[in-house]
């Protein structure tokens, strides 16, 4: 899967948010907030195609977490990204 174009991660007042950002309009009434690890994965996945496998590996490399937990977290994260429409399969 890969990130859809037009969604940029930014940090506002300490919150990681993804804002729909057309060339012309930025819609702050519809934003998606990410926690630190999700924001890390989003940055890591920027501009490339990736799989849940990749995300899990990145998470394991960066954070002290056991594999089943990482796998589970990635699965729910990907599900929420797909539901929010910010990544495409």
């Amino acid at each position, binding site marked *: 899967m890969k990130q859809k174009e037009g969604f940029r991660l930014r940090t*506002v*007042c300490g*919150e990681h*948010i993804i804002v729909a950002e057309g*060339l*012309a*309009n*930025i*819609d*702050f*009434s*519809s*934003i998606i*907030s990410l926690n630190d690890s999700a924001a890390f994965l989003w940055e890591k996945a920027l501009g490339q195609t990736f799989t849940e496998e990749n995300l899990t590996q990145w998470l394991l490399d960066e954070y002290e977490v056991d594999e089943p937990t990482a796998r589970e977290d990635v699965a729910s994260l990907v599900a929420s990204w797909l539901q929010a429409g910010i990544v495409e399969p």
Partner: protein
Amino acid sequence: MSTLVFPNDQFLPLVIEELQSAPGRTVTLPLYGYSMRPFLENGRDKGLLIAATDVKVGDAVLAEVGKDCYVLHRIVRIDSDRVTLRGDGNLACEYCLLKDIKAKALGFFRKGRTTLDRTDGLKWRVYSWWWMRLYPLRRYLLFLLYPHIPARFKKKQ
């Protein structure tokens, strides 16, 4: 779905920076507060803003009226570079300089609609014409629209 709320004094400077970084860029912002009643309602409506250029009396603008204090109110008077603002739902004015006018409303998304009520459209202009001229009656109109006990009649604690 939940709502993230950012403090105005930290969030709005970023919004303004975004607007000024690319001419013609717009932002959509949820609106809070009661000071632009009756047209705009707290938490219900959104504003479409663009960096301010050649503002005039009657425009709804985002202005920094004090240090880190922002309002989206209507310009009621301009004297060379001194600007007087007043929220449509307010009786009192704010004062600032032209340089403090940061952004201008192009229109509003009201009542959850996705169509814009443009500030150059008929609805906004007719509303504005009447609401400005009815200012002497505003106190009473607001009371009729939003019945409440005015603060000055409330018992002091």
